């Protein structure tokens, strides 16, 4: 009897001790996590302020000064090349997000407005994008993009005058103010720079979700400016949602919504991509390869933020203006560590070797993870196509249609319900002379 009582006491004491230690541990984790809080959406427009918000730190190089007045953050003074005002914000755990900076176009040349993110630690690792003023404005994008296993750097200066056709011209002419933004999607290992809502360049980035980091922004001089008058209108951050709601997008606005899309540019050594909003609606993508390569080169990819796959109907209205030694494809791609990006379900058009353009369906439906294809016949280019894709989550079955006609039989896909996926339109080139001109009239995603 005494043994029975001792065992009972021991067991109940162990349960209590475990519960107490568990609660204590939750408290430790919670308190430690809050030392660097999760990132939250914000926008600071300065408004009626006369000082910077609490916790914002100003770091000055040279004789530049920053002050808040008249609803803007002014950076003034007489500066030399290399002088800088850098303002950092309290650290946060970073998630997929877009950091943006709105500023007034400066009258002088050689002024760089920049915004980005700097990881905590020594030396700080930063990734920024900046607008460099001048007769031919430049978008600078670069920094440390290293991941856990690989050290990498990105550095690129894009001449905005030559970018994006009409849109590029609009960007560089006459607008009183501009917005630059840095889009982080660690889920895709991707970072992109945008000007006035138009993606301009991107790079592979090994930055991770929940990395403790600070937003940094400011003004730096690339030339001597005796009477600097730079004005920053706002700084903002918006996190990206992983639940892509149903939508229909005719690209009739002035920008590609960074909350919904990411654009992957080709490696600058291998290809170029010009993209712009067409007058009257639609998104024009003009990509070409620029290097001597015999194998496929990713030319571009426009993809949505990741979302858990449900029963869905996905449509794209596209005009394929020109394809030379290239393929363009539209469909679904895997978008998580456990649903890899090469697990896809696409409708594509390929043209190579001087043969007519061919329509094909392609995807992972054999149960092996490998790709299989359905033939869809040849077409004459240019050609406007209405591509439709239906996915039934209950049976994992996918079916594709081109201009209302089925492209091959329905397939049981290796993509299952709730797998994280993204909708994409992309193009690959096959040679040094690959060209892909596509106009995307509309993308619609209808989920149930």
């Amino acid at each position, binding site marked *: 009897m005494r043994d029975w009582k001792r065992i009972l006491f021991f067991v109940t004491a162990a349960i209590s001790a475990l519960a107490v230690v*568990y609660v204590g*541990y*939750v408290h430790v*984790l919670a308190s430690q996590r809050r030392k660097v809080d999760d990132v939250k959406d914000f926008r600071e427009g300065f408004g009626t302020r006369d000082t910077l918000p609490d916790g914002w730190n100003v770091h000055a190089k040279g004789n530049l000064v920053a002050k808040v007045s008249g609803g803007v953050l002014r950076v003034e003074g007489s500066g030399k090349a290399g002088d800088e005002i850098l303002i950092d914000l309290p650290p946060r755990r970073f998630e997929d997000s877009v950091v943006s900076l709105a500023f007034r176009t400066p009258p002088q040349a050689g002024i760089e407005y920049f915004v980005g993110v700097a990881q905590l630690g020594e030396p700080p690792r930063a990734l920024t994008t900046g607008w460099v003023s001048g007769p031919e404005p430049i978008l600078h994008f670069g920094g440390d993009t290293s991941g856990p296993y690989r050290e990498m750097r990105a550095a690129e200066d894009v001449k905005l005058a030559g970018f994006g056709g009409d849109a590029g011209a609009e960007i560089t002419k006459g607008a009183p103010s501009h917005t630059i933004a840095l889009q982080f999607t660690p*889920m895709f290992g991707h970072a992109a720079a945008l000007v006035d809502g138009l993606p301009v360049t991107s790079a592979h980035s090994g930055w991770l979700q929940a990395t403790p980091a600070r937003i940094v922004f400011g003004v730096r001089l690339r030339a001597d400016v005796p009477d600097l008058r730079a004005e920053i209108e706002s700084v903002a951050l918006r996190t990206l949602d992983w639940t892509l709601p149903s939508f229909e997008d005719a690209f009739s606005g002035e920008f590609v919504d960074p909350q919904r899309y990411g654009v992957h540019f080709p490696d600058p050594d291998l290809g170029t991509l010009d993209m712009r909003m067409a007058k009257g609606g639609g998104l024009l993508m003009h990509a070409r390869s620029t290097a001597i390569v015999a194998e496929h080169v990713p030319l571009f990819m426009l993809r949505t933020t990741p979302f858990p796959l449900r029963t869905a109907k996905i449509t794209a209205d596209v005009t394929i203006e020109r394809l030379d030694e290239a393929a363009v494809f539209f469909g679904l791609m895997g978008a998580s*560590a*456990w649903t890899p990006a090469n697990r896809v379900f696409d409708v594509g058009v390929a043209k190579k070797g001087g043969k007519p353009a061919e329509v094909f369906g392609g995807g992972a439906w054999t149960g092996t*993870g490998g790709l299989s294809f359905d033939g869809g016949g040849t077409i004459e280019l240019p050609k406007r196509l209405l591509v439709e894709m239906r996915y039934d989550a209950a049976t994992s079955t996918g079916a594709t249609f081109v201009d209302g006609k089925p492209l091959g039989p329905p397939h049981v896909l290796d993509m299952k319900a709730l797998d994280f996926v993204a909708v994409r339109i992309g193009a690959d080139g096959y040679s040094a002379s690959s060209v892909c001109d596509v106009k995307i009239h509309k993308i619609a995603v209808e989920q149930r």
Partner: protein
Amino acid sequence: MAWSSWLRRARLWIVAAFTYAFFFSGGDPNGATRYSLTEALVVRHAPDITPVHWRTIDKGYKNYKFFADKAPGLSFLATAPYALFRATDRVTGTDPDSREAQLAKLYFLTLIFAGGAGIGAAVLLRRLAIFLGASERSAELVAFAYAFGTIAFPFSTVLFGHQLAAFVLLGALVLALERRAAGTLTRPSVLAALGALWSLALIVEYPTAFAIAPAGIATLAWTVSEEERRDKRLLLTRLARSLGWIAAGGIPVLAVHVVFSFWAYGKFALPYVYVSEPYFRAHMSGGLLGIGLPKRIATVGTLVSPYRGILFLCPVLALSAVGLGAWIVSGKGKPALRVAVPTLAIYLLFLCSYYAWDGGGSTGPRHVLPALPLFVVGIAFFADRSRAAFLVTLGLTIVSAGIMLANVAVLVQQPQGDVFAMNPFYDIVVPKLGHGVVAMNTQDAFVPFGRADASFNLGTLLGLSPLSSLILVACVWALAYLLPVVRGAMRPDPAHA
């Protein structure tokens, strides 16, 4: 004095408990699928993990639902503490799905079922070595070598089933040997307990069948007396009785698995049959659930390669061969030897024949873990042979423990790659340590992509620098093992007092 004596005897598990609790090696598909099944059983009262299947690639697909593809034993056992934690969340008003609450649950389930099992296996190993006739000093050394100088250390910090299986198997062996020596092996309660333990090991890790078979056959043989051996009728009666009691203990455990299987799949089937990831499925369809003929690449990779080689990562295990020789030569513990030799042979064959011999994201060939105590126990006999042998064992133990500490500190789930080209220890672990990086596992049990805060250690969690956090662990080890030596040296010799 009694306190000091207790502390000396208890220091192995105290130090192991501190060390295993110190490191949280984060999530991975294996742990995520086991955790998700536990969560499904407790929260949704369902056998499938469909709503959260995106957490892991280790899953099966059947009747439009996803299931954990691992042997479910650990997940079954984890339901009790998991339910306690959920109840505690309710009482304290904590959101059970908040990140800290989820991490804390994963941490404690890992600590109980991997860390606790690792501690238990180390303590049992010391007990077994002493029981077999090794000195206390050598037994303590090999137990330390097992706990910190082998891959038992990293796998005591992640929610895999191997350490639990190792603990249960070793427990069964120690029970059988001790009861045999005491003449009480044939008691129904003992045989039933053995049946339950073997069944539990089986439903925690199916490959433990390779270790259960020789242990079971030997145990059956041990239950037969000399008199029964001479009389066929008595022999058959005894065997039937022993088997019956073993089955009486084992069947209820196995029945839980069978019931779960019918609940999940509508019939009895192993979860691996329905594995959904195409890459895994392609391999599992070869041989018997992926086990084929021995391959050179697996043999080299498992034993000596810098990629996953157990001897490369744990040089103290190079003494396993001479340890076995010393054990045989010593003439001690012959019954245990008859279990150990075939178990080691079968496991080596299995390791060299399984398609996933490298263990996926792993430190060393993790599938060896259930049999690892038997690779280590013989080393005690070698260490007992001479002072030089002891010092060699001690030296290799220190080197192995250093390598393992570095691996655990930096990354347990080391990436897969080319067997002949990859060297995760020198390519990843050492450089990262040099740059002051620890806990770099980014796999997360709760989201299907990398996170910077997926793994950590208690030192860095509480604000220590990465280097300081490791020094703290080394200091605790030194304090536990060097301080008594120093105190002993400083104590006046009684002969001169």
